């Protein structure tokens, strides 16, 4: 039987048990492990292409949360990526579009075009150091640093976004690489006993 209503799916196969949250098929697993990886693909993701020094005030290479908890990332010169709770992409896009001057830029909904995942835990940097050549020392990539680099040979945007005092990295890549990248991170984290933790809203 065809699903009704339609269910959105991440490119990353969910770890059991599976649930539907906010129209998305997600993993409902809860992990208490020290090192956890979460599929965050359901997050709303908005790409803004504009001019440097545009409406956001977040510089290239940094990420900050606005008053609504939306994570605004300066992901490139004249480029910002916004992460919001699952299901809010439309509102986010509209809000951004009205803030931009006419002809000043363009807003794209990349919610379905990017796979996102987060690694959290004291060994998060050790895992990333196995697949990413960027210097993860605090002086070079402190909390709030954002960069684009190769992670396990895939072009990936990485944001250091510590949570609860723990080292945490939010990553996103072309959706089609999502399963591959997730598996590569699980492989790299195996020696640190990484576990999959399911997605729980708002997730950002």
């Amino acid at each position, binding site marked *: *039987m*065809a*699903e*009704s*209503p*339609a*269910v*959105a*799916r991440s*490119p990353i*196969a969910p770890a059991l048990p599976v649930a539907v949250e906010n129209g*998305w098929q997600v993993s409902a697993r809860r992990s208490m492990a020290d090192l956890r990886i979460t599929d965050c*693909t359901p997050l709303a993701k908005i*790409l803004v*292409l*504009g001019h440097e020094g545009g409406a956001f005030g977040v*510089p*290239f*290479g*940094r990420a900050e949360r606005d008053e609504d908890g939306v994570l605004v990332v300066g992901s490139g010169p004249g480029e910002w990526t916004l992460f919001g709770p699952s299901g809010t992409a439309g509102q986010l896009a509209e809000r951004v579009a009205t803030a931009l001057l006419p*002809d000043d*830029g*363009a807003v*794209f*909904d*990349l*919610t*379905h*075009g*990017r796979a996102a995942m987060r690694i959290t835990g004291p060994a998060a940097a050790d895992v990333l*150091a*196995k697949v*990413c*050549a*960027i*210097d*993860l*020392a605090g*002086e*070079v*990539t*402190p909390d*709030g*640093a*954002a*960069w684009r680099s190769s992670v*396990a*040979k*895939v072009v990936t945007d990485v944001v250091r976004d510590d949570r609860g005092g723990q080292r945490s990295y939010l990553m996103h890549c*072309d*959706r*089609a*690489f999502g*399963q*591959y990248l997730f598996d*590569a991170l699980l*492989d*790299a984290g*195996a*020696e640190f006993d990484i576990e999959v933790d399911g997605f729980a809203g708002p997730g950002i």
Partner: protein
Amino acid sequence: MQVLSDTMPMRLEVRRGERIDRRHTLGFTWNSDGYTAFAGDTIVSALAAAGERIFSRSFKLHRPRGLLTASYIDPGCMVQVGDEPNVRGAHRLVESGMTVLPQNAWPTLRFDVKSANQAVGRFLSAGFYYKTFMKPERLWPAYESVLQRFSAGGVVSEGSERGLYDKRYSHPDVVVAGGGPAGMAAAVAAAEAGAAVLLVEEEHELGGHLRWAGPDAVDALGELRAAVAATDGIETMTDSVVTGRYDDNWVAVLQRGLPHVKERLVKARAKTLVAAPGLIERPYVFEGNDIPGVILSTAARRLINMYAVKPGHRAVVFSANADGDAAAADLERAGVEIARLVDARKGEDIVRVSGGKGLRSVECGDGAKIKCDLVVTAVGWTAPTSLTNMSGDRPAYNPRAARFFPSTLPDDVLVTGGIAGDGSLDQLLGHARAVGSEAARRSARIGRRMRASVPHSESEEGREGPADSPVIIPELPISGHPELFMGRTHGVVDYSEDVGSKDLVAAVKEGYDSIELAKRYTTATMGPAQGKLETVNAVAVVAAATGSTIEATGTTVWRPPFNPISLGALAGRIFEPVMLSPMQPWHEGRRAKPLVAGTWIRPDHYGDPAGEVNNVRTNVGLIDVTPLGKFDLRGPDVPKLLNQLYVNKWSKLAVGSVRYGVMCAEDGVVLDDGVTGRLEPNRYMMSTTSSGAAALWEWMENWLQTEHPEWRVHLTPMTSAYASINVAGPKSRELLKRVAEEIDLSPDDFPYMRVRTGRIAGVDGCFVWRIGFTGELGYEIHVPASYGLHVWTTLIELGADLKAQPFGVEAQRILRLEKGHMIIGQDTDGLTGAYGAELGWAVKLDKEDFAGKRELVWQSEHDDYFRLVGLQPADPSEVPPEASQIIEGNKQIAGRITSSRMSPTLGRSICLGFVAPHLGAPGTTVTVQLPDGRRIPATVMPQLAHFDPDGERARG
């Protein structure tokens, strides 16, 4: 000193500072016989404790070999452990149940048939393979099989379990290569100055020569180890080695001994490198210097002080320095009778050693012949300058010290320890501490410079760094040492390669009179020890043979790796990124045959490609075309970009319309093709080929960022953001009606080459364009990718009564070939211009400018290029393989087949191909040469399409 049990007749009583743990015994086999070791024993120390002396046979001459250095580089101690060949027996720790076998010996180590090589040794001199085993050439297969049987090394079993290897990146401020006393002191000082330090030590624990310097060194060793452990900021890797130093201090570290991987390659970008490799004791060249029982003084001290093993019973010690004297004292304390101390400082010498499988006697310089079972030599030290060499330094020889020293180092490389000079332990530690502090200071300066250029690091304001004045590094004294390399008789220079001083002298006589030539001709220094034991002796022999000096002769250049490195470590984890469509789980469930298309995995077919073709022509088929390149273009100046990049015109494309476009490069060569639709006044969706998508993105951004930054255009790739489904066949409209909302599918309202947006199967944000790669009535649906699987399964389910079935890439290729639709890159190549590809109809030369225009103007005025035509073999059952050549006369190439299939629709073979212009007229018969040599005739068709040439089915 009393020896222990019968199983370990050479084991001594407990020694202070020994590294074995006598509480744990381990059983292992050597040569199928059982042996016992203590935890902490190496394979060779355990065997030596049991009284064994022969561990291998030499590479070429199969001479029996014992231990020489009792360290990682010991050339006589390469053994096979289980499935693993070329294990360093004097470094690898014994594990319970280990199966150890000798290498390079048959049938046994003691009675090696191949030692017959010694009888013909004069015919096996260095470089013999340049002069022998050549004529007659027809016997080469026989020569090869003989030579293979005599090749050295262990055995690799095809059934060996594959080991896990991985890699890791690191960014230490300071890498200290060498964990001896100087390395430890430098690491502590650097860390105390605020640097993040990576300390790398080749042996299983830190300590360097303090580990075997006897009970007096134990306290100093303990203090230094405690300091390292107690200092924050030092990451220590033992049983690991810095294998190479590359540009800008990119340092490769091979890490062993990890629990979950066999080996790990650590790629470290160090701000400074401190080389503290210590000194390597040099062997002495004389007749019989490779007979088991001839060892270095450091080997004797390692065996006694680290492993509590008595190296022999009656020894002659040949000493030129205090370390040799200390070795003699250690031997005496271990109960070894010192038959004679031959003092090189007094001009005394040893001439030759006699023995076969074991040492029997030594002849001294004064003619005395002394019976003994052990000869210990201490004739000097070699500085392992490999890492500094790799840093651009050419070491300089100091005759007074009889060794090489680094001379010119870059700012980010420092040295300490024996490689820098001599002195007491306190002097060495003082030097090392200063070097460590200075390394930290330089690292901090480099770090500040790097961070200032990184956009996302914190501001440097207010950050205190170490004082900026250079740390004063005290000079180390350089002790004099006699120059002792070779005695009065010829002996082995390179133990691993079985190269003797005679071979080097002969090479010089043959004209290989530079050290670089002599090295390559004889292979001296090219073995597993990589020159550490033999380079200086080789230089000395060549210098003497050429009447030159060591200084003038110089050394060869050390290149990475410092130590031999396994291929597994270099490979690491195999990262092969894979791109998957949202419908991939469904394809796998239907057992679709996977097709690797670049990084994408696509369904090639579902079991019956011909059946899939027929179903599309008769009913309705669905194909997953998600990998199709897609770009979302926004802004008022998008038409300018389209006009610039495409050969055709775009200014008047209406909202809701779709146009086919061809892109050429500046040289007029076809770059890509696809359709672009206008969804909104300032929003376009461009499609490209799947394989061209990444390159096209760069192409477009290049034009926008460098050529026309004033154009108001923003674009982003959406290839993976949309799941794309081509619904094709006479019943496709009927099927689409069952899922499309807010879209009028009537032919008048949705004609061919139009685009509409709306809801599909309850999913918002979809767009549909009516195009036809297959040549049938068809629609390409683009759905937000997260709903791709939902839409696909809904279509399949709701289309059951219409016989809706999936079709794969193979069927699509057949369908489009029936219609004569080319594939860029398959039916075109790097020289195919638009006119040659029969795309001249699309080229609008009256546009002011576009990429490739100049070249295309020229092409339009000429006709001497190969043309793309439709071809049908005369025999309809013959399907020429793609790339078959079209020939004229006997040898002239006049074209090639680019696409070729059996057409289920027409029941015959069909092709596309390039032909020379004079063969392009419809009806011309051309000759196709098949790979098996046969030649078949084929006819040039009036058009590219073999089926429905007027395109009526797609426009219905």
